[in-house]
């Protein structure tokens, strides 16, 4: 990131938008140890021009992290009243543009800049924090009869097909902002952020099923008798985030797997009652009531046509 350019833009925004007190206040919010009078060398009773205040702040915050933290505070107070006036950031779009060019977007919930995920898809979407519990939607995928396929096919064909399958799943998952957290070779667990992710998980499931023949025609290297078919289940619940995503486990992840193992049918999607209740109304028409598991209704999509 071109820090010098960022500082130039930021200085311009600060001078146009804030008075000295506001600049000092925001800097103090970003770093409680910041003291404008002390850092600038001006005495307590001397009025500091806003341009000088802005230059002092930009000198004080040196690293990329510190500057982004300061800008986060600036964004947080935009439109709010501080130090005797409402802060309105003028020409904020210049900052937005520069940050977007650097793949960064402001997350108001976290009050920090996160990677936009356009270029790099982080397993934590750039926002999940280690050890914290989050609401997530889970999609479990499993190839039907994979052990039988391994017995009847050459090892290299199996390896290539499974590699292609993961690539196929990954492409569709990325499109709907899902993250493959665990992959077992013949299937895996895909996570989606919060309750809104349920609808995305269903859309991923539908797209996978409808494009599965394309995969079989173009990327399946097994014997021609062996077309790949899959079972899927979707559930919504909680899990504690770990940067080692392979190690993430929770009761809800376990339940997602159980639904797939116990109720899954080839080329069908099993949906838990929780997920069914949370999904968009437009998606409910795809599912029919199927079974009951521990007092929880289970729904199924198995009418591919």
């Amino acid at each position: 990131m071109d820090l010098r350019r960022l500082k130039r833009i930021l200085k311009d925004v600060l001078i146009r938008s804030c008075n000295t007190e506001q600049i000092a206040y925001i800097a103090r919010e970003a770093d409680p140890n910041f003291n404008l009078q002390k850092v600038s060398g001006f005495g307590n009773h001397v009025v500091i021009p806003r341009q000088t205040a802005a230059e002092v702040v930009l000198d004080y915050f040196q690293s990329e992290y510190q500057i982004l933290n300061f800008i986060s505070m600036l964004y947080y107070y935009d439109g709010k009243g501080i130090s005797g006036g409402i802060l309105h950031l003028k020409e904020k779009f210049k900052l937005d543009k520069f940050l977007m060019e650097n793949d960064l977007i402001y997350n108001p919930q976290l009050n920090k800049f996160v990677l936009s995920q356009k270029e790099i898809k982080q397993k934590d979407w750039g926002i999940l924090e280690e050890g914290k519990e989050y609401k997530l939607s889970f999609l479990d995928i499993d190839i039907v009869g994979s052990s039988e396929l391994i017995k009847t096919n050459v090892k290299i064909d199996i390896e290539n097909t499974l590699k292609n399958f993961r690539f196929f799943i990954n492409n569709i998952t990325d499109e709907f902002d899902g993250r493959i957290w665990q992959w077992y070779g013949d299937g895996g667990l895909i996570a989606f952020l919060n309750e809104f992710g349920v609808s995305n998980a269903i859309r991923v499931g539908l797209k996978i099923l409808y494009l599965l023949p394309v995969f079989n025609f173009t990327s399946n290297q097994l014997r021609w008798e062996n077309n790949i078919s899959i079972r899927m289940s979707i559930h919504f619940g909680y899990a504690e985030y770990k940067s080692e995503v392979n190690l993430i486990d929770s009761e809800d992840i376990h339940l997602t797997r159980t639904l797939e193992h116990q109720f899954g049918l080839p080329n069908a999607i099993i949906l838990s009652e929780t997920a069914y209740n949370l999904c968009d109304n437009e998606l409910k028409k795809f599912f029919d009531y199927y079974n009951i598991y521990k007092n929880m209704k289970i729904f199924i999509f198995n009418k591919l046509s």
Partner: protein
Amino acid sequence: MNIFVLDPDQSIDVFYKNFFRVEFPKVELRFFRSTNDFFDTISYLKPDLVLTEFEIPNTFNVFNQLQSNQICFIVVSRIFSERIIVESLKHGAYDYIHKSNLKFDYFKNILIRAFLDLPRWQKINTECLSIQTFPEYQKYDESLKNLALESLQTSANIDPTIPVFVEGKTYILNFLTVRIPIYPELLSYFVAEEELQRMHAEWLKKAINIIEQLNGIIWIRKSDAFTAVFPQKDYLRPILASLEIKAYIVQVLSNLDISELKILCAIEQGSVVYSKDKENLYTEAINLTYHMVERLPSQYYLYITENIYKMLDPRTKKYFFKEENPFKGRAIYHFEYIS
């Protein structure tokens, strides 16, 4: 009546056969790919009329020999060049027709006129040949013939790797017709008809994008349907395109509060004489795919003909199931997701 067809392009035969069977059932057709075979045959069997392509070896020599043998001939060619047409007529051709015009009534009328005019033409031709030209005539005649042929070579010198369709040339292609019909449930869902029209246009546009990503070319576009072409060997691509379009339609449906969003795709392989005016292309394959997407039940969304089915590999064949009743006398297959 005997008509000889001298054309190296074999794919045009089907058109001639169908055309003469319908319009002139008593005409006997013979097809020749090379001039040697052709002249061997006319040495003992004189045809009443010859239909010849211009693009044959030693074209003008062939024309001269036909003229001197009092054989009436019509040039049916993919070449549409003023010089070539004039030179052909100068060298004895009774008429000249561009292949893209074959489907129109021109061809039928040209033939009828030729049949009716044959005795008179022969008399005129005999008279013409009996009159000697000036010695200098040959020099300018040769020069003009060479210029015409050179201009032809320049225009034909196109990079073969670029898929450029040449006007009048016959191609065997795979035709995919996709139809996204507007039906009552859709009309009642969208309060404003303009909104439905806008959405419908967007769906078609996206479907066309999918086709183009798979190297298909859109030839015909109608209000609720379009036809795309794929090269002869790419018989799998139209199937893949249909599947991707269906996946897209399901995504659209997942955002709408309606029970279904209909889509019908049909694929057939056939030959076509290329014309820039694609709305008037003559090809049975396009007609058939349009009839299929109009008339076949929407219970299944993808239908292929037996021509396509036979070419598929066993893995792909597993997804296609034969329809009980043939469609317009042809066996057809529908696609199902469970192989």
